[in-house]
């Protein structure tokens, strides 16, 4: 058996592999919380590479990683959907394990959508379109659910207005819009009282709301605030 490939393993790969093995060993013998060590080994290097801290791969290895990640997301996403569908067959509620899986699915989907939009359009255009689509869907929902109560329909429609305003601002004053979006996200976090939960189920619900609503705000806000000058679109000069 040829074991020469072992010498080609990077130091990061060896450390990651050791952590994965150690984590699993401790998890199945002592406590499942040790799986966090496995998580550090499995996903830590990827995070460090994306942050530009770990530079142990050339372009071919990175391409292979990206391709693997894309295929993994397709398989993991479709598997999670199938499991939820079978676990909750005959029901219309998400709870327990199915809610936990839905959280993973939401993260997968949101990160995929945001990352691909950001890579394809650039941060400003992506944020503009995300906020516009989000606001439009919310508005349609309000119009459909309150069409027999014009006053409450009007009042609730006002809630959507900031999203369109922020979308417009994000093209012209991205950093200011980003800061406002972050503040809005933090405000909503406290408004929805996501920091307190009386039960495990409520914790999962709070996590779900955090991921679907607060996280997109914080991520888009941070992306706009961190926008580099050379990435900025100069809308005012284009007249658009």
């Amino acid at each position, binding site marked *: 058996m040829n074991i020469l490939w072992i010498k*080609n393993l990077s130091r990061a790969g060896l450390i990651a592999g050791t952590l994965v093995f150690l984590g699993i060993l401790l998890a199945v013998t002592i406590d499942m919380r040790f799986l966090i060590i496995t998580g550090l080994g499995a996903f830590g290097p990827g995070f460090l590479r994306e942050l530009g801290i770990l530079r142990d791969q*050339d*372009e*071919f*290895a990175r*391409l292979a990683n990206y391709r693997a990640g894309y295929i993994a997301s397709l398989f993991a996403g479709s598997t999670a959907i199938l499991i939820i569908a079978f676990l909750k067959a005959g029901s219309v509620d998400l709870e327990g394990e199915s809610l936990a899986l839905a959280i993973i699915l939401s993260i997968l989907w949101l990160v995929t959508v945001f990352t691909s939009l950001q890579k394809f359009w650039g941060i400003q255009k992506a944020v503009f379109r995300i906020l516009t689509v989000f606001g439009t869907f919310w508005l349609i929902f309000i119009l459909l659910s309150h069409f027999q109560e014009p006053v409450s329909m009007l009042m609730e429609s006002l809630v959507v207005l900031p999203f369109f305003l922020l979308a417009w601002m994000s093209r012209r004053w991205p950093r200011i819009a980003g800061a406002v979006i972050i503040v809005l996200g933090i405000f909503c976090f406290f408004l929805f009282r996501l920091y307190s939960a009386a039960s495990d189920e409520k914790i999962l619900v709070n996590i779900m709301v955090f991921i679907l609503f607060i996280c997109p705000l914080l991520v888009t806000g941070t992306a706009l605030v961190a926008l580099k000058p050379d990435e900025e679109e100069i809308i005012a000069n284009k007249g658009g």
Partner: protein
Amino acid sequence: MKVTTDISNALRKYRFLSGELTQQELANKIGVSRQTIVALEKGQYNPSVALALRLAAFFKVNVEDLFQLTGEDQ
């Protein structure tokens, strides 16, 4: 319009013309892994413009001498 993305390369030829460099030696000089050179020579991977330019500069040839589009653009 269909644009072909098939690219052939003369990497192997230039590697041997440059003193019969091994794949590992070339990889070390260019700053990539040996596996990248293997994939390039097999045509399994099309390099970035930056890597193509680095390879061309190393062999002191034009990029077109190293990499060529195969087939016809339609």
